[in-house]
């Protein structure tokens, strides 16, 4: 606590510092002693200032002997003024310190987010490996509906198995989406496989890196943005389509998986994105396959 003594006015410190330190050694610390010292320091500063001030303004001669009381009365007003001023200054100082401290704390906060993004970038690789397939499988129905040839091929296979009338064909058609959802191993199981031919080669070359959306977007060299289809416009469909785009080491799009779709727009998105060209993603001097999530906003004007 003796460090406090350094806050006394220099003259006071030089004259009384040592003996006051010795006294504090005798007394020991404690909150009461602390407050007492702080108060005394403020008073000592006030007295120093008041003395300097009253010398020029007060006609009272330097106090001597019993007359010091009069002198004190004479300087009491300036003393009070200075006390109030000092008190205000101390309060303003404390408030400023608290505010500044608060601002400095806040300035420290933005640092973690950048660390966080690094951490976020790392974990993603495991998820894409496992859920990529089921998700792709689940999301393939739209291309299946839209491209009849793919549907008709598996459709032909079960037909002989069931060997029933044309009414049964309708039934098998309605069956097909269910079968895909359940992942049944029947002839229909080849449907999703066909719809996702690009995924296999990309995975064969090692798990593609999932890049942050803006990073992936910055790798894009050419390609148009998907446009509204006449159907979708007529049906007033608007919103966002999110697609996971995977790119091989040459910069060609190998797969487009719709993560969040809109009716009548998924197809244009995947068709357009498939024609995009990318700059190969370089990592440690090697081109790596990568994926990124792209978001397409469709707004009706």
């Amino acid at each position, binding site marked *: 606590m003796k460090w406090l003594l350094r806050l006394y006015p220099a003259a*006071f410190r030089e*004259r*009384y510092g*040592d*003996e*006051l*330190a*010795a*006294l*504090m050694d*005798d*007394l020991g610390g404690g909150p*009461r*002693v602390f*407050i*007492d*010292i*702080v*108060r*005394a*320091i403020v*008073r*000592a500063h006030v*007295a120093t200032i008041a003395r300097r001030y009253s010398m020029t303004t007060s006609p009272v001669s330097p*106090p*001597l*002997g*019993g007359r*010091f*009381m*009069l002198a*004190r*009365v004479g300087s*009491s007003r300036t003393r009070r003024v200075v006390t109030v001023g000092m008190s205000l200054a101390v309060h303003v100082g404390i408030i400023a310190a608290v505010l500044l401290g608060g601002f400095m704390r806040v300035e420290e906060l933005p640092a973690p987010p950048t660390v966080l993004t690094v951490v976020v970038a790392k974990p993603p690789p495991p998820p894409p490996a496992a859920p990529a397939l089921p998700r792709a499988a689940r999301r393939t129905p739209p291309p299946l509906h839209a491209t009849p040839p793919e549907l008709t091929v598996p459709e032909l296979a079960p037909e002989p198995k069931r060997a029933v009338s044309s009414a049964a064909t309708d039934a098998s058609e309605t069956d097909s989406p269910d079968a895909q959802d359940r992942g049944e191993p029947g002839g229909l199981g080849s449907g999703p496989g066909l719809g996702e031919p690009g995924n296999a080669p990309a995975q064969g070359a090692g798990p593609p890196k999932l890049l942050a959306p803006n990073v992936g977007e910055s790798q894009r060299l050419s390609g148009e943005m998907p446009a509204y289809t006449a159907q979708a416009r007529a049906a007033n469909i608007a919103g966002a389509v999110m697609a996971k785009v995977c790119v091989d080491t040459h910069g060609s799009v190998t797969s487009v998986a719709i993560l969040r779709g809109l009716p009548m727009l998924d197809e244009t998105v995947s068709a357009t994105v498939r024609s995009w060209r990318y700059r190969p993603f370089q990592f440690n001097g090697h081109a790596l396959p990568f994926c990124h999530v792209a978001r397409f906003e469709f707004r009706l004007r």
Partner: protein
Amino acid sequence: MARDELDLGRFSEPALLVMVSLADGPKHGYAMIEDIERLYGVRLGPGTLYGVISRLEQRGLIVPLATQDRRRPYKLTAAGASAVRAQLRGLRDFVATGLARLRTT
């Protein structure tokens, strides 16, 4: 008289306590604090005490003696002694008047 009482009020109490404590001989800070506590039931803080000491010394009411093992004793000067005497007499009159008034009511 009234004027004296007013001045008495302005006379800071710790200063009077310190001077009374030094009235029977020189003492250093710690001894003053202990003495005043015994005498008056008030324990002065070190900051308060040294504020008083510096003021009294400036006004020539007390003088420092040679330091003994970092502790410096202070001694009441003649001017200091007469000042305390005046203060205490003033107080005595004040106390007497107060008590007398209480008796009459």
